[in-house]
């Protein structure tokens, strides 16, 4: 028998209604899987677009998990524009949980805010009014009339490398995302 499903005495299929908590956990579990794939893609040194794509998808699902928790699923729109606003809120929230000694450092919150903004823009639906057509999934036409292919593009606005200035913040962002997703998945 499928979880939450069964039959009544007269053979009519009945189903437990899905709750917000079911969806919160589901989005969080999928986000954790996205993060695991992001790690595998880094280890395999695949093209940056794929690494960023899984990071973007994980971020979006964690934010969705958070929003359903706060507002209920019925009040959460099916859009991609959550990450820039919600990830820094999640960061502050998780760094100020009981038992923690330190608030999130200012530099780190700024770096996470910047990364969250850039990660949000990776979704093809978030092209900022065609000002930012670059995205991690589909080819686009650049300002010189050339076709750009994600797997051949360097995405200079999102530094996910270990040698760049954002590396330290990226480590902390990923750890934060895992922490939040595991918390919401419970």
């Amino acid at each position, binding site marked *: 028998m499928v979880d939450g499903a069964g039959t009544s005495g007269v053979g009519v299929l009945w189903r437990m209604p899905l709750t917000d908590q079911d969806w919160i956990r589901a989005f969080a579990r999928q986000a954790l899987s996205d993060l695991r794939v992001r790690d595998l893609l880094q280890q*395999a040194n695949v093209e940056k677009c794929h690494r960023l794509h899984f990071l973007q998808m994980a971020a979006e699902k964690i934010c969705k998990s958070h929003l359903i928790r706060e507002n209920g699923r019925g009040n959460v729109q099916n859009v991609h524009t959550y990450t820039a606003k919600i990830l820094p809120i999640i960061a502050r929230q998780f760094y100020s949980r009981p038992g923690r000694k330190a608030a999130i450092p200012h530099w780190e919150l700024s770096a996470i805010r910047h990364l969250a903004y850039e990660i949000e823009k990776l979704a093809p639906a978030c092209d900022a009014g065609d000002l930012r057509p670059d995205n991690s999934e589909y080819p686009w036409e650049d300002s010189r009339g050339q076709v750009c292919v994600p797997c051949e593009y360097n995405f200079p606005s999102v530094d996910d490398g270990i040698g760049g200035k954002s590396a330290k913040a990226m480590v902390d962002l990923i*750890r934060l995302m*895992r922490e939040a997703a595991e918390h919401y998945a419970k």
Partner: protein
Amino acid sequence: MAKLQTASELAKGHFAIDPSVRRVILLEPVKEDDPEVPIKLLEVVEGTIERGIEPVSFASDPANGVDYPVVIVEISPREFEEIAAESSQLREDLEKRGWWMGQELAV
């Protein structure tokens, strides 16, 4: 650039950008001759979320002078004390991955 030197440069960079970094320890084995084996850094960071031994992987980044894949394991000072103890769960978790603490990288 050799792995050890690359590790030192990374550690210096992380000390410089994050004042909360207290110590950076190179995790063994380094396997200097095998470029596929990642550099593994154990970073002790004040105020970090305590999540145990949780590696974050990075591909090599030759454009920024890093020719090897890198793994960062960030822990709190309290967790570091636990790892430094003779027997602890965190130390076991590290050893299960076949890693052990090597030299400390200077600021």
